[in-house]
């Protein structure tokens, strides 16, 4: 069973409380990179706002064991909602200009992150958290509520599928 890395440490009055600003300063780059990989630069900003608004609402009075895993767990949920919403109302591809070309960051839209986004949901989530979020397999497992073994398997299945697509 995966250890819950987002668990709160037992309360004690002399435990230093981390002001939310410091949490934001420390996690903002990881969350940003993860979201650019997960949804593309165009939509990353909106999801960044939603991620930190949700984090601030849930922000505990106690120390978080693994703040990066906690932040990325929330970002992952926002990305998942985003993918689901898109799946419900598909847009004709031809009508939408390429996000990368639009904001002049074509380099971000290299085929591989696009390909990651096209993976089946479990593999996509695992590959994104592992490589864009730079979480260890155990942390990926905790973020998704699955076993470490399942996280490992989803990552390797995802990579295998990507290799196939990339080399095709």
């Amino acid at each position, binding site marked *: 069973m995966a250890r819950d890395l987002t668990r709160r440490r037992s309360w004690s009055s002399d435990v230093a409380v*981390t002001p*939310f*600003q410091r949490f934001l300063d420390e996690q903002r780059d990881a*969350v940003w990179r993860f979201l650019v990989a997960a949804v593309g630069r165009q939509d990353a*900003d909106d999801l960044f706002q939603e991620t930190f*608004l949700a984090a601030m609402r849930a*922000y505990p009075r106690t120390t978080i064991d693994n703040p990066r895993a906690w932040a990325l767990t929330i970002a992952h949920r926002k990305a998942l909602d985003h993918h689901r919403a898109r799946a419900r109302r598909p847009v004709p591809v031809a009508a939408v200009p390429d996000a990368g070309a639009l904001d002049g960051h074509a380099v971000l839209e290299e085929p591989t*992150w696009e390909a990651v986004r096209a993976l089946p949901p479990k593999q996509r989530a695992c590959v994104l958290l592992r*490589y864009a979020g730079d979480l260890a397999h155990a942390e990926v497992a905790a973020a998704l509520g699955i076993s470490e073994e399942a996280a490992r398997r989803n990552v390797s299945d995802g990579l295998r599928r990507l290799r196939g697509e990339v080399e095709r």
Partner: protein
Amino acid sequence: MRLPELPVDGAAEAAARFAQVADPDVAYTLEDSPVGRLLLAGTRRGLVRVAYAEFEGGEDAVTEDLARRISPRVLRAPARLDEARRELEEFFAGRRRAFDLPLDWSLTRGFGRRVLQATARIPFGQTGTYASVAAGAGSPRAVRAAGTALGRNPLPIVVPCHRVLRTGGALGGYTGGLERKRTLLAVEGVPLP
């Protein structure tokens, strides 16, 4: 297998936009002033903290204290402190004799709060004594305790503890060091001992 590098440019701008939309329990900003760098913090009720940043351990120490004593949802959100910043600027420019800001007294309690509220009634350009604010707080003999309460003033400048001197006119102490007390009294045109 290698996936493309991911950028961090854009993260700072996204965080800045977050500060504009978020509504933290405690908003703060850092401002330069003639008495050094000030950290101003406010809750939804009003200004809750004015801290001499260098004197009190810097941004980290002051925001940690706010996180512990008020709420961990402490965010640098300067727009919420616009009014405080403007009134302080006017004060230092000699264009303001009284602050009209709503204050949040929640970092004070009991006798300490009464001492500070008595201090807040000393008009611009005038001075009181430790004995007079102790009396104003309802305990004329608690002079030493009044001094302690003034030393813990969470709202210096705005709650003008710099106007409290020793009986006989000696400067006494100050939360931000005596040099700052002298500067503030000079702003108000009070002759120094």
